[in-house]
């Protein structure tokens, strides 16, 4: 089947009405999922760069030597936020948040996909598959 490529995936000339509805929604979802990934990674990289700049201003060095021992992602974020709330703002806060943001990016993408399959497409088969992926990832993030 040949379509005009300029028309794009959202508006197949020869598609049936049902197809059209689904591809249109997919069009929107592709953009949302794509931007979640892009923005997540960019925020994470900005946090890491900010941490390095702050460290450089503070100490004229770019090295960090602290260990993340036996902490899962949520403990790591909680720890850093708690320290920040006590007024202990440090470059390592930004670095840890950068790492956390990086790890949360694919997680948020899966979360958004589940909302999409459930609410927009009402596709229960894929809602279940996405829920399994989300539960497994949640389990891995809460590992101890």
């Amino acid at each position, binding site marked *: 089947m*040949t379509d005009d490529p300029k028309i794009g995936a959202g508006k197949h000339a020869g598609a049936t009405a049902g197809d059209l509805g689904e591809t249109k929604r997919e069009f929107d979802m592709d*953009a949302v999922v794509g931007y979640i990934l*892009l923005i997540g990674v960019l925020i994470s990289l900005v946090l890491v760069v900010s941490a390095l700049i702050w460290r450089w201003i503070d100490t004229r060095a770019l*090295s960090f030597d602290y260990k993340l021992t036996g902490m899962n992602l949520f403990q790591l974020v909680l720890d850093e936020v708690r320290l920040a709330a006590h007024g202990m703002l440090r470059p390592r806060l930004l670095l840890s948040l950068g790492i956390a943001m990086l790890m949360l990016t694919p997680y948020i993408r899966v979360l958004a996909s589940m909302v999409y399959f459930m609410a927009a497409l009402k596709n229960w088969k894929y809602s279940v598959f996405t829920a399994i992926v989300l539960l497994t990832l949640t389990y891995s993030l809460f590992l101890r």
Partner: protein
Amino acid sequence: MPHVSFELLFPVSIVAGFVGAMAGMGGGVVIIPVLTLLGVDIKHAIAISILSVIATSSGSASAYIRDHITNLKVGMFLEMFTIAGALTGARITLAVSPRPLYIIFGLVLLASWLALLFGSHKLAHTGPQDKFTHWLELEGSYPDRVLGQTVHYKARRAYFGAPLMYLAGIIAGLLGIGAGAVKVLIHDLIMGLPPKVSTTTSNMIIGVTALAGASVYLVAGLIDPGLAAPVILGIAIGAFAGTRLLVRMSNQAVRRFFLFILLILAVEMMVRGIRGGL
């Protein structure tokens, strides 16, 4: 473990990301051997690499998804298996001694190298779709700019692709790499996806798979933020530059040169693993 300075690690990571992208693989396959040569323990190197894999795969997956080439359903279905595999793989890495990791790393790199060098991107098979794959709704279409038309396709043999993707997940979690070459092979040869769909969908799967592995390494205390900062930044910059250059380049000789570097790394890792005394 010796301290590796930011000033050394940052440029080295840029080069690793660049070489990986130019060769058509991720930065992980280059940074892990390099980090171990700098004296970093292989398990720490794997843990840092898998974090950088999240950054590079999510970054490049973003553009492909927005271009409507990636198939979200194929991705979602196969992710169930790759994530489980990555959790298994990362736990194996925590349990074993370093030597077998060097040897397996070398072997996987060599196999991916062969796949990249000799892999032919044939058109997707057009045979009938089996009932299971049909039930899974694994089909779609994408706008192909080169052909100037929308390509419609139906995937096949998901029952066979799924367990193989579990194995691909084990490799990714075990070695801290995207294992994209393995995933693309499964998509292409077993499931009959068009090459563009298989590469881009594999890219999306790599991100969540790496996340599962990274969680295991984080709790095990193997993620060293001081090492992670320059590596994540450097690989992201290098891979971005490499990918941009690669799409504009038609010269196969340059790509073969970068593939040759990967071959040396593969052999070098295997030799170190076999000889021991790491």
